[in-house]
């Protein structure tokens, strides 16, 4: 039951097909990698992780940091395939789809030297579900038998997780769930050492002194400044190529750019302002690497509130808007237009899915048929963000052309989510959805099942019994191809009913220094374990010269990059870009690097 998040190459192809892609300059050559060891990786994060306790990880950044330290039973590799991690091989699943038997790898050791056993897995899973832990991620493991009652404190035993001997774990589900293994690959499934967790009097302290089995050991953490790791030389898959990692907290995009240009960062995640700037720069433009995010941006219509209860009105709004014109102007190279909800690069994405083309006459006719020949007034909610306004303002003027007078209401983030959640009753709002797991389920079940209406994810309050039934059947269908076909059918059926104006799938860019090899971008936050990345001592640094005639201001980037509080598996405001670790550089000479990399920063002044 491998998840097949299509290789990033395919995502790149999709981007290029959309006429806005630039292929990366070099492809990693894994065979060659074996020869080069050593070096310290330097990258920037826009903020510190809140905690590195797997039970308390919420954001993509937290997950990206924790995946360096921990392992789960299974994980996603950089190609988006589900592969065994602490498990020696993919588990056996019983015929009824309820029981999974995991055989653990032998001789896996925590960073403190203790061997990992089945009891640690049981402890870790129980801990996440334990009501006393107050884990925001307990729902991830809730499909386990008895987990829901255990989590509510109604029972003390957890029959869904048990150890069978020292090296075997048996997981039992309440009911079959096709994407269950994908859930196990989430950070909530990371395995911790009980002794380490219980060593701290204050339970919050463990999150700052994490101990796992992963390829990197946390060596230093100054909140707001940096996180440093050194390689776990006893890592069960072999030690990483690099010796050290340093992630610096740099909030300001202009600072990060300065550090990168000076050669102090190995990778920079580009803000929209940056990607324009580097694209115009001949020395850097071919080093830009595009990647898809697992996300979709859309204008949601409230299907429970008149006049949006009327399909003709929802269609009219879709026909009134020319998305491509808006996106070409606002995010020229950072989007793939969306017709549905499943992003390209994810199995199940349907490039043939028909969208709504702009046709103001048809829109006016539909409105007249629905009883609004002269249009109506409506409100579009969004968070207070210039990035979002750049999308909603053109929408407003296009709606005006068919007689709909839309008012844009900007709200503070918390107020916005409350207004578009269970407490509010909005007309329409600009929002984005960020997936938990690379599975089409995550772009349909939470968003369109009537049981999730409101804050559960289905914020457009779409309800269709046929869709509900299909979604439930798909969740219990173990055959992958059949399941994907079902999800495509659901997507077609949902979007014929126009609960959204789908807008775009975001594309992000990063840029690497010329000596970086083996870095593969993955939209799955936990896939990048930094074990395959290495430095090429022969690489020539890019010519460095001052760009004195360029305007360098912080405001442009601050505008578009916004706050980096995208939580994964959830909604983010529209217009907020996934800027969870725009890269930036640290002012340290890359000394002590094996091979010729030391001294780079001196050679390209």
């Amino acid at each position, binding site marked *: 039951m491998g998840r097949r998040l299509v290789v990033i190459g395919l995502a790149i192809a999709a981007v290029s097909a959309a006429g806005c892609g630039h292929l990366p300059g070099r492809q990693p050559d894994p065979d060659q990698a074996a020869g080069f060891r050593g070096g310290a990786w330097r990258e920037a994060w826009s903020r510190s992780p809140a905690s590195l306790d797997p039970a308390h990880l919420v954001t993509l950044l937290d997950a990206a940091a924790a995946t360096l330290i921990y392992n789960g039973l299974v994980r996603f590799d950089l190609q988006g395939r589900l592969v065994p991690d602490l498990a020696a091989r993919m588990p056996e699943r019983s015929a009824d789809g309820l029981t999974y038997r995991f055989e653990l790898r032998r001789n896996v050791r925590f960073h403190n030297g203790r061997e990992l056993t089945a009891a640690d897995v049981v402890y870790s899973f129980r801990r996440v579900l334990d009501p006393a832990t107050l884990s925001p991620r*307990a729902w991830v493991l809730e499909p386990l038998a008895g987990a829901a009652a255990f989590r509510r404190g109604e029972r003390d035993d957890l029959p869904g997780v048990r150890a069978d001997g020292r090296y075997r774990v048996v997981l039992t589900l309440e009911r079959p769930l096709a994407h269950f293994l994908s859930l196990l690959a989430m950070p909530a499934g990371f395995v911790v050492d009980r002794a380490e967790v219980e060593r701290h009097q204050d339970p919050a302290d463990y999150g700052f002194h994490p101990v796992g089995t992963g390829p990197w050991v946390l060596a230093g953490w100054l909140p707001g400044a940096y996180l440093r790791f050194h390689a776990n030389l006893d890592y069960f898959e072999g030690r990483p190529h690099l010796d050290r990692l340093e992630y610096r907290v740099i909030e300001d995009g202009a*600072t990060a750019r300065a550090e990168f240009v000076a050669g102090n960062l190995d990778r920079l995640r580009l803000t929209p302002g940056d990607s324009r700037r580097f694209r115009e720069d001949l020395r850097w433009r071919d080093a830009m690497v595009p990647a898809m995010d697992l996300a979709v941006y859309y204008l949601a219509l409230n299907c429970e509130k008149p006049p949006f209860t009327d399909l003709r009105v929802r269609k009219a709004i879709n026909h009134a808007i020319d998305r491509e014109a808006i996106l070409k102007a606002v995010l020229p190279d950072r989007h793939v237009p969306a017709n549905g909800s499943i992003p390209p690069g994810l199995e199940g994405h349907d490039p043939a899915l028909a969208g709504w083309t702009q046709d103001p006459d048809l829109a006016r006719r539909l409105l007249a048929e629905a009883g609004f020949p002269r249009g109506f007034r409506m409100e579009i909610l969004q968070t207070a963000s210039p990035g979002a306004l750049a999308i909603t303002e053109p929408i407003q003027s296009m709606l005006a052309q068919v007689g709909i007078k839309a008012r844009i209401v900007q709200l503070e983030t918390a107020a916005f989510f409350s207004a578009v959640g269970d407490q509010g009753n909005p007309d329409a709002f600009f929002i984005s959805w960020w997936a938990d797991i690379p599975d089409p389920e995550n772009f349909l079940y939470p968003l369109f099942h009537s049981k999730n209406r409101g804050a559960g994810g289905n914020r457009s309050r779409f309800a269709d019994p046929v869709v509900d039934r299909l979604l439930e059947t798909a969740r219990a269908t173990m055959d992958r191809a059949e399941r994907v076909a079902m999800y495509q059918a659901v997507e077609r059926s949902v979007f014929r009913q126009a609960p959204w104006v789908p807008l775009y799938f975001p594309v992000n860019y990063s840029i690497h220094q010329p000596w970086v090899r083996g870095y593969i971008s993955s939209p799955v936050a936990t896939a990048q374990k930094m074990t395959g990345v290495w430095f090429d001592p022969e690489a020539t640094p890019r010519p460095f010269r001052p760009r004195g005639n360029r305007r360098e201001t*912080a405001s442009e980037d601050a505008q578009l990059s916004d706050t980096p509080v995208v939580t994964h598996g959830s909604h983010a405001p529209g217009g907020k870009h996934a800027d969870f670790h725009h890269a930036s550089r640290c002012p340290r000479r890359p000394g002590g690097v094996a091979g010729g990399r030391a001294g780079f920063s001196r050679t390209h002044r």
Partner: protein
Amino acid sequence: MGERASPELIDSIRRELGLDDPIHVRYLRWLGRTLRGDLGRSWATRRPVLESLVSRFPVTLRLTVLAFTLSTVLGVAVGVTAAVREVSGSGYLVRPLLLVGQSLPVVYLGLLLMYVFGVWLRLTPISGIGDGGLRYFALPAATLGLYGSVYKARMTRAAMLEVLRQDYIRTARAKGLAERVVVYRHALKNAMVTVVTVLGTGLSALLVGSVLTETLFGLPGIGKLQVEAVWARDYPVVMGCLLFEAATVSGVNLAMDVAYAWANPRIRLA
């Protein structure tokens, strides 16, 4: 809690945070805890707020000492020179420069210094705290110091011009004192009354954390803590920072009132 928190979980957290009590009970509880030095726990990291403040303060303090010293020395020196040479080439030159300096946003000044000294000349680190060495403070302290010195120079100059026109200055000159003594012992000490006020507000502004500069240069001080807390909507930390600010500003103002008495014995602390 994320999007999928169950009602039970939300309830248990409300209870844990004491949000189910009436507002006056919550206020009194908060006041009681604050007086005992318990500022609560961060919602994001679940650690005590006081701990974050204490761990971040040394960075801000260091930056303050450096920036304050630079801005005071530079500001007073330039101000005095500009006043003494009011009608000379350097006086005419300094005034428009000060005006430009005051109009330059601190972020722009910071970026300018960052690109010139960090990126092009490579004399200083560009940002961050590194091993905590002094060189990491060079650019942020220079930014804040230059920025602060402009206002101080303008105020010093204005105060000096006023004092230099006084009768007792003429008397001092008439009795044959050296110009240096007239300017520094007689004039400057009297001009300091105004200048001390400016120094005080400048000092408390630095001590409570320079939000923009710390963020721009990635220095983990109080200012950056505030920004992080606001972005994360981590209200206990935001409140802790504000309380710290209020206390610092009050403390510095008190110290300045005492300093007035030193600068001008005519002011008595009743």
